[in-house]
C-alpha cells in the first residue's frame, strides 16, 4: 500500500502569533472573534445600511412618505418610482426608506424595555429567591403560557392601536424571555466560585450583583437582545399587519403589507419590497446575534 501523499506545505509549521504582552479584555477578545465571522459582518453591514437609510431618510427619500396622487395609483417600478407606487399613488421606495426608521426604533426600544424590566425581575428572583422568586417565576410562567401574539393583541386592544402601544405590548410580552434568562444566569453564577470568592472577601450583595453577576450576565443578554430585536421587528410588523400597530399614513412595513395585500396580483411591488425589507433587517439582526453568541459565549449555542 502506498504511503500517504503528504503535501510539502503540510510540513511547514506556521508559528502561532501569540503576543504575550498585549492586554486582551474579554470584550476585545469577543470583538476579534466577531470580526472574523463573515456572516456576522454581513449582518452588521445590513443593519448599518438600514441605520444609515433610516437616519438619512429625509435626504435620500425622493418623495415624502405621506403624499401621493391618486391618479398615480399602483404604478409599476419606473425611473421616477424605483419601487413603484402604492394605492394612494405614494412612492413605495420612499415609504420603505422611512419604514426603516420605524422598524429599527420599535425593535430597539421595545427590547431595551424588555431587557430593563426582565433584568430587574430576573435579578430579584434569582438572587433573593424564596417567595420573591416564586411570585416572579409564576408570573413568567403565566405570561409564557399565553401565545405571545395573543397577549400582544390584548395589550394593544387595551391601550388602543398605535405604534407606541405596539412597542409597549411587544416590550411586555418579551419580559419573561429576558427575565428567565437573567434568573437562570444569576442562579448559575451564584454557584460560581468567583462569586463565592467575592462573598469570601466580605462583599455586600448589592456590590456582588453589580460587579459580578450583572457583568457576567451581560453577554447572554446582549445575544438574546440582538435576536430579540429581530423578533420584535417581526412582532411589530405582525401587529401592523393586523392593523394594531402603526397607523396610517405611517409607513410601517407590516402595515404597508397589510394595506397593499389586496393588490398583490396587480401591484406585487407594493407587497414584495416592504416584506423583503422586514426579512433583511431581521436577518441582519439574527446574523449579528449568531455571531455575537459564538464570540461572546461559545458554550451558549442553542
Amino acid at each position, binding site marked *: 500500500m502506498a504511503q500517504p501523499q503528504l503535501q510539502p506545505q503540510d510540513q511547514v509549521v506556521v508559528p502561532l502569533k501569540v503576543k504575550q504582552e498585549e492586554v486582551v479584555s474579554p470584550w476585545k477578545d469577543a470583538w476579534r472573534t466577531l470580526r472574523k465571522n463573515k456572516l456576522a459582518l454581513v449582518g452588521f453591514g445590513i443593519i448599518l445600511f438600514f441605520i444609515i437609510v433610516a437616519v438619512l431618510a429625509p435626504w435620500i427619500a425622493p418623495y415624502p412618505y*405621506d*403624499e*401621493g396622487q*391618486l*391618479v398615480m*395609483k*399602483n404604478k409599476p417600478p419606473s425611473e421616477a418610482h424605483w419601487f413603484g407606487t402604492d*394605492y*394612494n399613488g405614494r412612492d413605495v421606495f420612499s415609504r420603505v426608506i422611512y419604514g426603516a426608521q420605524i422598524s429599527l426604533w420599535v425593535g430597539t426600544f421595545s427590547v431595551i424595555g424588555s431587557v430593563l424590566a426582565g433584568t430587574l425581575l430576573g435579578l430579584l428572583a434569582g438572587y433573593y429567591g424564596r417567595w420573591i422568586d416564586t411570585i416572579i417565576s409564576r408570573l413568567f410562567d403565566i405570561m409564557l403560557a399565553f401565545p405571545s401574539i395573543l397577549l400582544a393583541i390584548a395589550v394593544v*386592544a387595551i391601550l*388602543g*392601536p398605535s405604534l407606541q402601544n405596539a412597542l409597549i405590548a411587544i416590550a411586555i410580552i418579551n419580559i419573561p424571555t429576558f427575565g428567565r434568562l437573567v434568573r437562570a444566569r444569576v442562579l448559575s453564577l451564584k454557584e460560581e466560585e468567583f462569586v463565592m470568592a467575592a462573598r469570601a472577601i466580605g462583599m455586600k450583595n448589592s456590590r456582588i450583583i453589580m460587579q459580578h453577576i450583572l457583568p457576567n450576565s451581560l453577554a447572554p443578554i446582549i445575544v438574546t437582545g440582538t435576536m430579540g430585536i429581530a423578533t420584535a421587528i417581526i412582532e411589530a410588523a405582525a401587529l401592523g399587519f393586523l*392593523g394594531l400597530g402603526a*397607523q*396610517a*399614513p405611517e409607513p410601517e412595513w407590516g402595515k404597508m403589507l397589510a*394595506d397593499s*395585500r*389586496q*393588490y*398583490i*396580483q*396587480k401591484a406585487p411591488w407594493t407587497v414584495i419590497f416592504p416584506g423583503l425589507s422586514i426579512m433583511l433587517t431581521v436577518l441582519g439582526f439574527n446574523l449579528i446575534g449568531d455571531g455575537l453568541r459564538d464570540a461572546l459565549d461559545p458554550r451558549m449555542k442553542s
Partner: protein
Amino acid sequence: PAEQPKTETPAPATEPAKTGPKQLIVGRGADTKGLDPITQTDGETFKVTENIMDTLIGFADGSTELAPSLAEKWEVTPDGLVYTLKLRSGVKFHDGTDFNAEAVKYNFERWSDKSHPQHSPEGFEYYVSQFGGYKGDATHIIKSVEAVDPTTVKFTLNRPLAPFLANLAMSPFAIGSPEALKKDVKKFNEHPIGTGPFKFVEWKRNDTITLEKNPDYWNPGYPKLDKLVFKVIPENTARLTALASGEIDLMDGLNTDDIPAVKENKDLQLFLRPTNNIGYIGFNVEKKPLDNPKVREAIAYAINKPEIVTAFFDGVGEPAVNPMPKTMWGHNNDIKDREFNLDKAKQLLAEAGHPNGFKIKFWAMPVPRPYMPEGVKIAEAIQQDLKKIGIDAEIVTMEWATYLEKTRLGEQEMFMLGWTGDNGDPDNFLAVLLDKNSIGSNNYTRWANEEASQLMMKAQSNPDQAEREKLYKQVQEIIFKDVPMVPLAHSTPALAGKANIIDYNPHPKGSESLEKVDFK
C-alpha cells in the same frame, strides 16, 4: 351569449348540472352570527335566512317595490290603520307543520311581547326600531294582530305608519315555525325552520352553512338549485381566487380594483348590487373648530370626491351629494355639489379665522363596509389634500366596537361612517342620520338643527308622498348648506360569479333569496 367558441362547448361550468345535484357555493367575508333572523341585525345572517324563511311580503327582484310572498294580497283602510293580509294556503314549514294565520300571530306575539316565553332577553332590535317599541310601550305601533281565519291576518295600528308594509318585507320579520320555536328557541338560532325555498342542513362555524332544496316549496318550479352552500373566505382577494379556481360559484365583496379582472375573465361575470347606501365624512359639530360651518365647508371643498370615488369605488360607486341614495324618491337633484377647490377652501378657512389651518383628529373606519370599502385608505387620501390647506389631520382608528361607542358618545372630531337603508324610505336616511333626536343614537355629527328636525317630523307623519318629497328636498338643502357631513359616495357593491349563473338579481337591501338562481 349565444355564440361560444367551439372549445367552450364542454364548459366545465355546466358539469355540475350533468353529473350531480345542482349546487351553488357562495363565498362571503364573514360568518353568520345566528340564524334566527329576528335576533340579528347583520347582513351576513340575512343572506342565509332569506333562503330558509319567508317574510309575509316580499320585494320584487332587484328593487324595493313590494311583491307578494307568504301573503298573496293585502288591503289597507284609508286611514292607514288596518291592514288585512290574505295568506297563501297549503304552505308548510320544513318541519311539516302548517303555515297559517295563527303562525303569523304567534310570531308577532313572540316579537312584541316582552313576557312571551320565546321572547329574547336581549330584545329584538329591529322590531323596536321599525314598530316603535314593544307591547305596552306608548310608542308601539301595532295595536293588535288577529287571525281572522287560517288564511287571513288583520293588523290594527295605533297610528299610521307610512312604511308599514315595507317594514313587513324586511328580512328580520320572516316567519318561523311556531312548533320549532316552542320546542327550543335556542336551537332555532342554530337550526332555523321556515317555509323558504331551502332547508337548513349543516353549519360549520366560520366555514360553511349548507342548505338543501325544499321540494315542497310553495312557489312552483323553484328553487332551481339542489344545494346551496355559504362559505366564509374573509379576504376579498382570496375569495376571488377561490372563485376563479372554481372552489366557489358566487361571491360578494369584490374589490373594486378587481372588477376589470372579472370583466376580462370569460369564465366569470360581474354583478352589481343596486345602491342603497351612503358613505360620508362627518363633523362633530360640538367640537372646535368644527362648530364653525365655514370650517366644515372649507373641508368639503378640500375633499376631492371624484378622484377618491374613482380610486376607491372604481366603477361601482358615484359621488354623493346628499345623505340619501340618488335612486330613492325624494332625492334633491337640484343641489349642485361643491367642486374640489383648494383655493376656495383656503379662503374659507381664512374667513373662519384659521388662515394657517389647524390640527385635527380624523377618525377612520377600521372595517370595510359596503358604503366605505377602505376607510383608512380614503382617510389617507383626504389627509393628503387637507395638508395642502394647512389642516394637519391625524388619522385615528380603533376597534369597530370602540369606534362606534366613542363616536356615539361624541368623542370624535372629524370622522367617517355610513348607512345602508333598511327599507325604501328617505326617513330611513335623513332622520336616522341627522335628526336631533337621533343624537346619541345614529346622529354621530350631533348636528341639532331645529328647522330641519321640524321638517322631518312633518314628513314622517304626513301620509302624502308628494308632500313628503318636498319636505325632504328642503331638508337636504339645509343639510347641504350647513355641512354637518360631506356625503362621499353611494356605492354599488360589486359581486362576481361564474359565467354560467343565470337569474341572479342582487337586491339593494344587501341580501336576497337565491331560489331563482340557476346554472345555464
